[in-house]
């Protein structure tokens, strides 16, 4: 429920002043999610996979992770979608480790790395902060997640 704390903190005038925020006196409270935008979202791509193909071809480093106790955009959804890219495997499926615990499982493809994060919900760094930091470190180095 921590977003409740944010709803209070970021509406405090002293916080907004310190952050140089709300300088134009926006006619609505700061809120974590805008219902207006969400309900009136105008255009959305049916699929992002064509962009993945274009950016893999452009040589960008692409990592996709999935917290495996989220049911809103769950790990099975991501796996079904990534499977459509039909990428060749360079490092077959293996458990990755963080602080002697299974952090999740990972598979490295030509052009993309996929990893699950065990026990993490939709906001992976909220539930598994240490594992999320390991994800960042390995991503920045361009190295597969640790095998032990």
């Amino acid at each position, binding site marked *: *429920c*921590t*977003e*409740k*704390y*944010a709803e209070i*903190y*970021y509406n*405090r005038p002293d916080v907004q002043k*310190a*952050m*140089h*925020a709300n*300088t*134009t006196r926006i006619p609505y409270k*700061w*809120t*974590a*999610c*805008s219902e207006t*935008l*969400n309900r*009136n*979202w*105008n*255009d*959305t*791509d049916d*699929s*992002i996979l064509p962009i993945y193909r274009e*950016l893999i071809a452009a040589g*960008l*480093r*692409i*990592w996709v*992770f*999935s*917290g495996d106790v*989220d*049911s*809103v*955009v*769950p*790990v099975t*959804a*991501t796996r*079904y*979608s*990534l499977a*459509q890219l039909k990428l060749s495997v360079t490092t077959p499926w293996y458990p990755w480790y963080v602080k002697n615990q299974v952090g999740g499982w990972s598979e490295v493809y030509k052009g993309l790395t996929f990893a699950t994060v065990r026990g993490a*919900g*939709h*906001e*992976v*760094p909220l539930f598994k902060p240490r594992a*999320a*930091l390991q994800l*960042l470190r390995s*991503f*920045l180095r361009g190295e597969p997640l640790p095998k032990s």
Partner: protein
Amino acid sequence: AATAEADRIVSLPGQPKVAFRQYSGYVTVDETAGRALFYWLTEAQSQPLSKPLVVWLNGGPGCSSVAYGASEEIGPFRINKTASGLYLNKFSWNTEVNLLFLETPAGVGFSYTNRSSDLLDTGDHRTAKDSLQFLIRWMDRFPSYKGRDVYLTGESYAGHYVPQLAREIVHYNAHSKNPIKIKGFMVGNAVTDNYHDNLGTVTYWWSHAMISDKTYRQLVNTCNFRQQKESNECESLYYYAMDQEFGNIDQYNIYAPPCN
């Protein structure tokens, strides 16, 4: 540099003392409409000049990277229960990188537009264009980040924003004298492909024993999974599954009670 210093945060109310620098403020992305995006930069805790820039976007659409990414996921501070102050997050990503939280599109969080109709017709396209404009102009304000490695990260509906912005940057770089040195992107629990996401989602519900065989079969046989708006029959199956069979859980973390 003058405006960068004007954006410098001396200290947030109730913030513990920190050694890294932080900045926040607005970058105008469309003068005609008066659209400006709000950002919060927390520089790396050590040797910031030698560290890459990581941009974090939350999804929704319509949700704030300050509310989620910064304040409960990867940022250096957590908000305490009474919202009277902050405490440190020892697994903050600014232990490794310079971390930029962007509230996009206009209408999210502190980001605003003077043309109120923008709130009723913004989508993927405008969000990607405005976010690119933001980065280009932000780097003019923080020129030390020009030529620095840039990575885009995010989660959920930012599974759209992040690749779409990455593509905008790649296209911009193709004819720019000041290319943005984007190295890659990383997304989590990312909205990716409507049909396969939706099919995978109901399969996850069934394989994690959240719904009955009967409901699973009905969903797979009734729903189209391709379009934004499903049939009424399909919609009512979804509601039944969530209300009656999931029951009282946090769908974002299925083994936990909901946040009331």
